[in-house]
C-alpha cells in the first residue's frame, strides 16, 4: 500500500481548500442560470430525458443522439439532486467538484514530475496555476462542465503516458487507464474540445519517437494507440453506436447552421483578430476581452499598467526553467512542455498572422478541421498545462534560490507568488465574471417561486401530452429568451424546466416548422379566427402567457404580453391555471391529445407556406398534406391516395422590387491594363466554350461577363486610368454586348425558357444599365475633349444594354405594376380548379376582378370567404405551365384634395399630403404628377413619422421640373411606428432669395404594394374515414396504437418533427406529412400500428456494451494489480 508523506497530504488539503472558492459565488438564494450554461432547474428530469435519442423539449421534437454522451455530466447533477437538496445546493456541490477536479488531476501529474525533476514545493503552484487562470475563468462564466471534464482529464492522461514511457506501467494498463479516464471525463464527446488534448498527445508521440525511433519503440506506441482506441470504442459505445448513425447528416447540418464554410471562416477571422503571439504569450488573447465592450473585468487587465506588467512576466517565468535547468534528463521534460506551448500557439492564434494561412488551409482542406472554428477556446488547454508546469517550476526555483540565502524569505516569496496567482485572477474570488454586462446582465439570478410551481404542474402525468405555445414570442431575429427577473439566454427557459413539448421559436426548429409557428403568431396578432385551425393542425392545444417576459429589451424587442389580452378572451380559450406571472390557457373543446392521429386521405400541396391554406374554407383538417417539392417523385400508391390538390403559385415580383445586385460579386480583380489580363481572357474564352452548347447558360455567362466588364470600367475610372484604356475597355464591353444580344434573341425566340432564370438575367441587365447611367452622370470633372470618345462609347453601349433589357423584360413573366399581379404555375393535372385569391390589401368591392389564364380573360365578381379570401369561381385548367394574371381594383389610400398648389415661404413651409397606417414592413407606393409653376425655390418630399422642426426634414427627391409635368414615384416601407405622413417641404437655405415659388401636385395615389396569395384547389374524390384509433400506448421514443376498422389506404400521422429514423413495424409508405410531421400510408389492413425511433434501440445496445466493457476493464485492472502485488 502506497503511503503519502505529510507534505503531500498538506498539499492535497490545500488544493481541496482552494476548491471551495465556488462557495463565494452564491449570494442569498441566487443560482447560476442562462446564457450558454445549460444548467437546469430540474436535474433529474433533464437527466432522464438525456437517456433517450428523441426529445420533446425542443420545438416539435428532435433527435438528441449528440446529448447522450452527457450521461456523466448531467448524471452527477441528477445524483446530487436525488439527495433532495435545492437547486442552489446542487450547483454549489457541482461547481466545487468541477473546480477542484483539475487541481487534483494536476496534483497527480505534478507529484510524478516533482520526483522526476528531483525538486520540491512544485505541486501547489502547478495545481493552483492549472485551477485558477483566465482561460478557465472564461469557461466558468457559463460553467462549461464539458470543457472542464477534458481539461481535468489532460494531466491524468499525460501522467499515465509519462509512466508508460518510463515503463512503470504496462502498455495495456496505460491504454485502459486512458480509456477509463476519457469514459468518465469525455467532454460530452464534443470533438472541438479535444483540440488541446490532441496537440499534447501528438507532441508526446512525436517527442517519444524522436528520443527513440527504433522498431520496438514504434511497435510499443502502436500497441498503446490500438489498445486505447479499441477500449475507448467499447467503453463509449453507449453514445458512439447511436451517434454513428446520426453523424453523417449532423456534420453538414452544423456547418450549414453556422453559415456554411464562408460563415465559419468569417467567424474564425473575427475571433482571431487579437490572437497575436504577443497576446498569447501573456495569456491575453481571449477574444471575449476585446469583443465585449461591457466585459466585467477585461478593461482592467488590458489597461492597468501593473496588471499588464504582471502579464508580461508570465512568458519570462515560462522560459526561466530552460535557462536554469542544467540536467539534460530534466531539461528534456522542460523542453517537451515548451514544445507543447509553442505548437499550441500556432493553433490558438487561428487565422492570425504569421501562421494564419496554415490554419485557414487546414480549415478548408483538412476534413473535419472545420469544427475548430473557435481556436482560442479549443486549443488553449495545451498552453495552460505547459505554462502551469513551466511557471510552477520557476516558482519552486525562486523559492530554492532565495531559501539558500534566507529560508524564511524564500518561503515568504513562494507564498507571495501563489497569492499573486490567486489575486491576478481576482474575479474568481467574487464571482463577478458571472455579471457579463456590467450592472445590466448577470448569470446569477433569483428564480421566482412560480416558475418552480409551473415546473411541478407541467410535469404531472396528465399534462405531459399537452403541446404548449408560449407568449409573447421572442424577438424574431435573435430569438432571445429573457425575463424581467434576470434570465437571459438563447436557450428557452422552458427547456431547462421540463421535458414537455413547449414550443418556443428557436433555432432548433426546421424552416417549415418555424414558418408555420410564425404564421400562427401572426394570425393571433391579427385576430384572424383561422388561428384555431392552424393551432390544431400543429397539434397545439395549450398556451402559456408570460407576463414577466422582458419584451422591451432594446436589442431584442418583441410584443408586450398585455397585447394578447384580447386574444386570451377568445371564446375558444379557457384559463386553466395561474402561476404568478405565468398563466396557462387551453383550447376548448379539448381535442385528442394523442401524438398519433388517423387521417382519411392525402391532399397534395404544391407551393410555399403550407400554413396559409389552413385558413381556407375548403381546407379539410382530416386530410394529411403531402408536399410536392418537385424533384422527388411521388410514389404511385400515394398518388392513388390523393383526394384533393392545393396549388399555391408564387406571385412573381408583386412587391415591384428587383432582387438586390451586389456589385462586389461582379467587379473583376484584374481588368484590361493588368499584365495578367491575357490569362483572364483565356480563362473566359474557355468558360464561354464550355457553355456554348447550353443557350441558357451562355446567356447567363454574357449577362455576368458584360456586367463585370462595365464594373471593370468603373474601377478603371476610379483609378484615373488614361482615356485610351477606358475606350479599350468599352470596346471590349461593346463586343460582349453584341454577343449578349444575339444570345438573348436566340434564347427567347427559340427555346421554352425557365421564367425564374430569365428574371435573374433581366435583373443583371437592369443593374448593368444602371451602372452605365451612373457612369455617364458622374463623369469626372477633369474629363475634357480627350475623353469625349469615352462618353460617346458609354452612350453607344447604353443603347445596346437598353435594347437587351427591354427584350428580356418583355419576355419574362412578372407583375408589371401594382394592379396586374402575375403568377406562374405548373399544374400536375387537368381539372376543374376553384380559384381562391387573398389580395392582402383593400380592393374596391364594387368593381369586378379580371383574371386571365394564358391570355384568356375572365371577368369575375368574387364571393367573399373567411380570413380575407375571395372565391373567384371554378375554371377548367389544363396541366403544365400556365401564366395567370389577376387585375385587381386597388383602392387609393389617399383621401385628400385631388389637386394642390403649394407655395414656398421665406421661413420654409410644409404641406401634408397623406398618412399611411400600415403594419410594420408593409410596402407602399406613392405616385403623383407635379410641375413648378413659378419661382426658383426647391421643394422636396419625404415620409416622416413626426417632425418637430424643419431642420429635421431630409428630402428624398427635389421637385424642380418646370417645363412639363413629371411623375414622382416613391416606394416606402412602414417602420415600427404606427403612422407615417408624406409631406412636401421647402426649407430656408443660406442662398435663399425672397422669390416665392409654387408647385402644382395632382393625381396623387397611395397604394399598398401587395403580395397576394392565389390557391388553386381541386377535389378528385370525396375522402372516407374507415378506421379509428381505439387505444394508444407510448414511451419516450415509441408508440403503439390499436386500430378499429378498415385501415387499408388510411393515413397515420405522428405529429413529431419529421425524421427518417421514425420507423413503422407494419407495411406502410412513409412521407413527410403536413410539412413537418411523420406520415404513413397504410397499404394493408392492420389491427395495430407501431412506430419507434430506431436510434433508441441502438442506445440500449450501446449502454449494454459500455457497461460490460467497463466491468471487463475494471476486472483486468484489479487482476493486474493483484498480480503486481
Amino acid at each position, binding site marked *: 500500500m502506497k503511503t503519502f508523506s505529510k507534505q503531500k497530504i498538506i498539499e492535497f488539503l490545500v488544493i481541496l481548500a482552494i476548491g471551495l472558492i465556488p462557495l463565494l459565488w452564491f449570494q442569498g438564494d441566487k443560482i447560476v442560470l442562462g446564457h450558454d450554461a445549460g444548467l437546469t432547474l430540474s436535474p433529474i428530469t433533464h437527466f432522464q430525458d438525456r437517456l433517450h435519442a428523441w426529445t420533446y423539449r425542443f420545438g416539435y421534437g428532435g433527435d438528441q443522439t449528440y446529448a447522450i454522451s452527457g450521461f456523466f455530466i448531467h448524471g452527477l447533477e441528477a445524483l446530487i439532486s436525488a439527495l433532495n437538496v435545492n437547486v442552489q445546493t446542487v450547483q454549489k456541490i457541482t461547481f466545487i467538484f468541477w473546480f477542484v477536479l483539475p487541481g487534483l488531476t494536476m496534483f497527480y501529474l505534478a507529484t510524478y514530475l516533482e520526483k522526476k525533476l528531483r525538486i520540491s514545493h512544485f505541486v501547489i503552484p502547478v495545481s493552483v496555476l492549472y485551477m485558477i487562470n483566465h482561460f478557465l475563468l472564461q469557461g466558468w462564466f457559463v460553467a462549461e462542465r464539458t470543457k472542464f471534464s477534458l481539461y481535468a482529464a489532460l494531466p491524468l492522461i499525460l501522467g499515465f503516458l509519462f509512466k508508460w514511457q518510463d515503463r512503470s506501467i504496462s502498455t495495456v494498463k496505460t491504454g485502459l487507464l486512458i480509456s477509463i479516464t476519457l469514459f468518465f471525463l469525455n467532454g460530452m464527446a464534443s470533438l472541438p474540445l479535444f483540440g488541446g488534448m490532441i496537440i499534447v498527445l501528438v507532441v508526446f508521440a512525436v517527442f517519444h519517437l524522436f528520443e527513440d525511433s527504433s522498431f520496438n519503440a514504434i511497435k510499443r506506441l502502436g500497441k498503446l494507440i490500438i489498445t486505447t482506441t479499441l477500449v475507448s470504442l467499447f467503453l463509449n459505445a453507449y453514445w458512439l453506436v447511436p451517434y454513428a448513425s446520426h453523424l453523417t447528416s449532423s456534420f453538414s447540418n452544423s456547418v450549414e447552421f453556422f453559415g456554411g464554410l464562408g460563415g465559419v471562416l468569417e467567424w474564425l477571422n473575427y475571433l482571431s483578430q487579437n490572437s*497575436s503571439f504577443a497576446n498569447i504569450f501573456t495569456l491575453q488573447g481571449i477574444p471575449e476581452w476585446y469583443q465585449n465592450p461591457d466585459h466585467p473585468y477585461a478593461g482592467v487587465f488590458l489597461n492597468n499598467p501593473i496588471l499588464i506588467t504582471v502579464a508580461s512576466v508570465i512568458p519570462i517565468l515560462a522560459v526561466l526553467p530552460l535557462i536554469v535547468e542544467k540536467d539534460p534528463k530534466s531539461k528534456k521534460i522542460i523542453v517537451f512542455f515548451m514544445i507543447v506551448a509553442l505548437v499550441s500557439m500556432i493553433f490558438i492564434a487561428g487565422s492570425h498572422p504569421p501562421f494564419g*494561412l496554415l490554419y485557414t488551409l487546414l480549415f478548408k482542406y483538412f476534413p473535419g478541421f472545420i469544427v475548430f472554428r473557435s481556436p482560442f477556446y479549443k486549443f488553449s488547454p495545451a498552453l495552460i498545462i505547459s505554462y502551469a508546469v513551466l511557471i510552477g517550476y520557476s516558482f519552486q526555483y525562486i523559492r530554492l534560490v532565495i531559501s539558500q540565502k534566507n529560508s524564511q524569505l524564500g518561503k515568504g516569496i513562494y507564498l507571495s507568488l501563489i497569492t499573486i496567482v490567486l489575486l491576478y485572477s481576482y474575479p474568481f474570488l467574487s464571482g463577478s465574471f458571472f455579471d457579463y454586462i456590467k450592472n445590466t446582465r448577470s448569470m446569477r439570478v433569483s428564480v421566482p417561486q412560480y416558475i418552480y410551481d409551473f415546473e411541478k404542474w407541467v410535469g404531472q402525468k396528465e399534462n405531459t401530452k399537452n403541446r404548449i405555445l408560449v407568449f409573447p414570442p421572442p424577438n424574431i431575429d435573435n430569438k432571445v429568451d429573457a425575463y424581467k427577473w434576470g434570465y437571459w439566454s438563447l436557450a428557452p427557459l422552458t427547456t431547462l424546466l421540463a421535458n414537455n413539448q413547449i414550443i418556443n421559436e428557436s433555432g432548433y426548429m426546421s424552416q417549415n416548422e418555424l414558418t408555420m409557428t410564425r404564421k400562427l403568431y401572426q394570425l393571433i396578432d391579427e385576430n384572424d379566427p383561422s388561428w384555431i385551425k392552424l393551432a390544431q393542425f400543429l397539434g397545439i392545444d395549450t398556451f402559456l402567457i408570460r407576463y414577466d417576459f422582458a419584451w422591451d429589451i432594446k436589442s431584442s424587442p418583441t410584443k408586450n404580453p398585455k397585447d394578447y389580452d384580447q386574444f386570451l378572451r377568445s371564446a375558444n380559450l379557457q384559463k386553466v391555471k395561474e402561476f404568478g406571472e405565468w398563466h396557462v390557457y387551453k383550447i376548448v373543446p379539448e381535442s385528442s391529445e394523442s401524438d398519433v392521429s388517423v387521417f382519411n386521405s392525402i391532399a397534395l400541396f404544391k407551393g410555399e407556406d403550407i400554413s396559409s391554406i389552413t385558413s381556407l374554407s375548403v381546407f379539410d383538417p382530416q386530410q394529411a398534406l403531402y408536399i410536392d417539392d418537385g424533384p422527388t417523385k411521388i410514389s404511385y400508391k400515394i398518388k392513388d391516395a390523393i383526394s384533393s390538390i392545393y396549388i399555391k403559385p408564387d406571385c412573381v415580383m408583386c412587391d415591384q422590387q428587383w432582387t438586390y445586385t451586389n456589385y462586389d460579386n461582379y467587379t473583376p480583380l484584374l481588368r484590361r491594363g493588368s499584365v495578367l489580363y491575357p490569362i483572364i481572357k483565356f480563362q473566359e474564352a474557355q468558360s464561354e466554350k464550355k457553355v456554348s452548347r447550353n443557350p441558357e447558360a451562355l446567356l447567363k455567362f454574357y449577362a455576368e461577363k458584360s456586367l463585370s466588364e462595365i464594373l471593370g470600367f468603373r474601377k478603371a475610372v476610379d483609378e484615373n486610368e488614361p482615356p485610351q484604356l477606358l475606350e479599350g475597355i468599352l470596346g471590349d464591353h461593346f463586343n460582349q454586348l453584341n454577343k449578349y444580344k444575339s444570345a438573348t434573341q436566340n434564347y427567347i425566340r427559340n427555346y421554352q425558357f425557365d421564367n425564374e432564370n430569365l428574371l435573374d438575367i433581366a435583373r443583371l441587365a437592369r443593374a448593368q444599365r444602371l451602372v452605365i447611367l451612373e457612369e455617364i452622370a458622374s463623369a469626372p470633372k477633369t474629363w475634357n475633349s480627350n475623353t469625349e470618345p469615352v462618353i460617346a462609347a458609354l452612350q453607344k453601349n447604353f443603347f445596346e444594354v437598353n435594347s437587351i433589357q427591354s427584350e428580356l423584360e418583355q419576355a419574362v413573366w412578372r407583375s408589371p405594376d401594382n394592379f396586374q399581379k402575375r403568377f406562374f404555375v405548373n399544374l400536375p393535372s387537368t381539372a376543374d380548379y376553384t380559384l381562391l385569391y387573398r389580395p392582402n390589401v383593400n380592393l374596391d368591392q364594387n368593381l369586378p376582378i379580371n383574371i386571365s389564364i394564358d391570355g384568356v380573360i375572365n371577368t369575375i365578381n368574387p364571393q367573399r370567404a373567411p380570413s380575407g379570401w375571395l372565391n373567384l369561381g371554378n375554371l377548367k385548367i389544363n396541366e403544365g405551365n400556365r401564366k395567370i394574371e389577376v387585375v385587381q381594383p386597388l383602392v387609393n389610400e389617399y383621401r385628400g384634395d385631388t389637386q394642390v398648389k403649394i407655395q414656398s415661404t421665406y421661413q420654409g413651409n410644409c404641406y401634408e399630403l397623406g398618412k399611411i397606417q400600415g403594419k410594420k414592413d408593409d410596402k407602399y407606393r406613392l405616385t403623383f404628377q407635379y410641375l413648378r409653376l413659378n419661382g426658383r425655390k426647391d421643394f422636396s418630399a419625404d415620409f416622416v413619422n413626426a417632425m418637430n422642426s424643419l431642420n429635421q426634414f431630409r428630402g428624398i427627391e427635389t421637385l424642380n421640373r418646370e417645363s412639363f409635368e413629371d411623375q414622382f414615384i416613391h416606394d416606402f416601407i412602414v417602420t415600427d411606428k404606427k403612422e407615417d405622413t408624406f409631406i412636401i417641404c421647402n426649407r430656408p437655405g443660406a442662398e435663399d432669395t425672397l422669390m416665392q415659388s409654387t408647385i402644382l401636385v395632382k393625381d396623387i395615389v397611395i397604394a399598398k404594394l401587395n403580395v397576394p396569395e392565389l390557391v388553386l384547389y381541386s377535389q378528385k374524390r370525396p375522402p372516407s374515414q374507415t378506421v379509428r384509433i381505439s387505444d394508444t400506448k407510448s414511451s419516450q421514443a415509441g408508440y403503439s396504437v390499436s386500430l378499429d376498422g378498415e385501415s387499408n389506404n388510411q393515413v397515420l400521422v405522428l405529429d413529431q418533427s419529421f425524421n427518417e429514423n421514425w420507423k413503422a413495424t407494419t407495411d406502410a409508405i412513409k412521407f413527410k406529412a403536413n410539412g413537418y410531421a411523420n406520415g404513413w400510408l397504410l397499404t394493408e389492413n392492420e389491427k395495430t400500428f407501431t412506430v419507434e425511433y430506431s436510434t433508441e434501440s441502438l442506445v440500449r445496445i450501446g449502454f449494454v456494451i459500455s457497461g460490460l466493457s467497463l466491468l471487463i476493464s475494471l476486472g483486468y485492472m484489479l487482476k493486474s494489480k493483484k498480480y503486481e502485488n
Partner: protein
Amino acid sequence: MKTKIKKSISNIIVFAQVNIRKIAIIIVLEVLLLLLFRLPYLNVVGELFSFLLYIFIPILIVYLFKPKKEFFLYGAVALFIINIPFSILHMNFLKEIIGNLNYFLLWTYIILFLIEFKRENKKLH
C-alpha cells in the same frame, strides 16, 4: 555594478565592431526581403507567408555567428522585457512584431537543443 555595465557595453561595442559586416549583411538581407514582399504580386506571398520574415533572422544568425543556443533564450527574455513598455503604451504593431520574433527565437533554441540532444544520445549508444 557600474563597472559590470560598462564592461557589458564595451563588450557589445567590440562585438559590433568586429562583426560589423555580418550585422550589415543581416540587416541588408532583411530589408531586401521586406522590400521584396512589398512588390506587386510578391506582396501576396508576403501577406500569406509573413512568418518567412521572422524565420530568416534566426537562420542568418545561426549561419553567420554560430552562437551558443542559450543566446536565443537570453534574446527572447530580453525581448519579453523590452515588450513591457510597448504593451503598457498599447503600441500593438511593435508588440506583435516582437512577440513573433520571440516565438521564432524560442523555436531556434528548441531546435538547437534537440539537435544537440540527438547527437549526445547517439554518442551514448
